[in-house]
């Protein structure tokens, strides 16, 4: 039974890494190391291996990502349909938040 939920906040300290992983996988399936590199390039954040796999395990359990066949010990993961929905909602809410913040800043 997979837990599918559109809210990432209950992932606690893994909610930010989870969002970064989902955003990274939106660009195509990747294994752990490629995700770390991509996230660093995209967001300027380097996730530690323990943090990355803590978040990956949670996302997999929730059915937001799925593992593909391993390639020479490295296992790529890809975004599921549910994962894409969650990522879209999260980014839209961030977009609204950013837009509101920028509007307020413009009045200063």
């Amino acid at each position, binding site marked *: *039974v*997979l*837990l599918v939920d559109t809210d990432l906040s209950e992932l606690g300290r893994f909610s930010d890494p989870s969002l970064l992983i989902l955003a990274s996988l939106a660009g195509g399936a990747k*294994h*752990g*190391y490629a995700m*770390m590199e991509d996230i660093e390039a995209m967001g300027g954040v380097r996730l*530690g*291996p*323990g*943090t*990355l*796999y*803590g978040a*990956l*395990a*949670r996302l*997999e*359990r929730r059915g937001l990502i799925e593992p593909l066949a*391993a390639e*020479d*010990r*490295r*296992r790529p993961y890809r975004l599921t349909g549910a994962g894409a929905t969650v990522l879209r909602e999260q980014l839209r809410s961030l977009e609204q938040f950013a837009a509101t913040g920028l509007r307020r800043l413009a009045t200063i």
Partner: protein
Amino acid sequence: MSAHELWLLRLYPRQWRQRYEEEFVALLEGCPRSPLVLLDVLLGALDAHIAPQDNTGRILQMINRPRWTAITVFCAYIVFVVAGFGFQKMTEYDDFVEAARSHAAIGISFDIVVAGSAVALLAVLAGGLPIAFAALKYALAARRWDIPLLFLVPPVALAVWIGHTILLTAVLAPAHHGLSLHTFPGVLLIPSWFGVFALAAIASTAAVSLAIARSNIDARVFRFALGPATIATLAMVTMFIAVVVWGVSLRADAPQLFNGDGGILATSTAASWLAQVTIMGIATAIAVGSLVRGTGSRAEAQPA
């Protein structure tokens, strides 16, 4: 990977490693080494223990709970028996027998301990023998020879203890014209008798528990064992209360005995009694706690 990095990986739960270890190692091999990375891996291990990674793990945990309840109650029972053995040795002296005859509270509480020990033993056998047979059946079918070997530990440990007893009573005691706690070598040899008994009990309990943990046994056998385990635990609770009453009554009715040196190895009776009560109390609390969790999981598993 270095030895300490491999050691860090072993901190992760077995189920987590079965699922992620290979790819995680591949990732670590590509990562630059730094104390922060190692700390992150360490925190990841802690997280993996605190938050099990998949539902299968939780379901397996629930299914295995009666197994661990049976093993825990068995271990607690053996600890209780070791303390009870000390109580029995302490109370077999004439002064204590006379006190039990003369004072009703001491006598009745002692009789309750004797009856309780018989009930607990029968319950442990009723619940434990089907588990032992199921484990041996599995071992034969799966050709797991380590399991029968583990079951051989209790008879071997018993033989060692009996051999040690014979050595003390038939060889060493006559050679030294009797053994006393107040002279050498009795001061070493008599405590060794209790020490060998305790070691034999620990080795036997650990071996049997390991054999059961390693065996693939039908969950129904463990669920059946919860009934006898409940009876054994109730007997332990009753005996624990009876031993407390026995000591309190002895203090009130025969203070010279309670304050004397009639305890284990000629130590203070009060201190021996207190040590026995403490060990029995801890063992009983562990058995009760495990049983509450185990029967709770049985209620969860049954359809409404």
